[in-house]
């Protein structure tokens, strides 16, 4: 099953929800309407032909320069039967990064969503237990956003001039 077939079948069903699509390194990327993510994912999981029944990964990305599309949530699906992968992207505004949770579809999405919340502050609606997972609960920012520094401010044995990075 080629990527064209997959795209065709998806767009037959959800043509209005698909915003853009392309293919990189053999994997189909589809940008979807962030409000319809559960619907599409559910259909993909249950469709007897596509059978994208395995959630590989959920990732967040921060694009500070693109207005109203700052935060991207990326779902990577895998159909073992067809041995094909699919990437769904939903772009959210940084002011209100809210998207529906898919924990009811995949239990495994629970921590992935919590991690995305922890790193990027994406609010997953209807998530059973949305709170920080890796960082301390008292942390007051979302560290993976580009504006936050990586370094721990308490390190004293370092002089930035020497490292060729600024």
């Amino acid at each position: 099953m080629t990527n064209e077939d997959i795209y065709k079948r998806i767009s037959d069903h959800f043509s209005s929800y698909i915003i853009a699509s392309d293919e990189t390194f053999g994997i189909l990327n589809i940008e979807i309407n962030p409000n319809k993510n559960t619907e599409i994912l559910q259909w993909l999981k249950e469709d007897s032909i596509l059978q994208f029944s395995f959630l590989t990964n959920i990732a967040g990305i921060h694009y500070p320069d693109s207005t109203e599309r700052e935060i991207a949530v990326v779902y990577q699906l895998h159909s073992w039967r067809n041995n094909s992968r699919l990437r769904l992207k939903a772009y959210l505004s940084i002011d209100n990064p809210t998207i529906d949770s898919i924990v009811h579809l995949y239990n495994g999405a629970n921590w992935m969503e919590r991690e995305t919340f922890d790193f990027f502050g994406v609010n997953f609606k209807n998530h059973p237990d949305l709170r920080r997972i890796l960082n301390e609960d008292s942390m007051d920012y979302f560290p993976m956003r580009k504006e936050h520094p990586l370094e721990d401010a308490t390190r004293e044995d370092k002089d930035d001039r020497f490292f060729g990075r600024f």
Partner: protein
Amino acid sequence: MESLTNRKKVVSNKPMTFIEKLYLPAIFSGMFITLKHMFKKKKTIKYPEETRVFAPVYRGQHVLKRDEQGRENCTACGLCAVACPAEAITMVANERKKGEEHLYREEKYAETYEINMLRCIFCGLCEEACPKEAIFLTDRIVPTEFERGEFIYGKDILVESIEERIDISKRQNTGKRGVV
């Protein structure tokens, strides 16, 4: 779920036989194995007295090499510092003055060169980054210390002494190796 590949083999469905249910055979065979090991040669290397042979390419304590004439190779280009993922190397470059040609090979040299051995992860990237064959990792291990400050290794420790050269010829990263 049906097979995704045709290479599947179930490995854990062997039922227990009656004899195995009696506990004893496995226990006795296990005890026999341990008894056998009791009389085997011990594998232990009594470390402080005996040392294990390290691979010649082992990534241990760094050395700043001198060339055949005893001049320091380092030219303080800073590539090692850039290549260091732990940001453990700092140096201050200085121009070589007249009359110091016997000390430094290049026109620039590192006035101070410090590696924070506590930060260092011994990944060997500095060794690879060095274009002047100045810094090498060696198969010596970094000793432990009582205070954190003692791990800032300056040039006094890092630069090899002229009398006691450190042999790094077996490291394949040197320029002298044969390329396949």
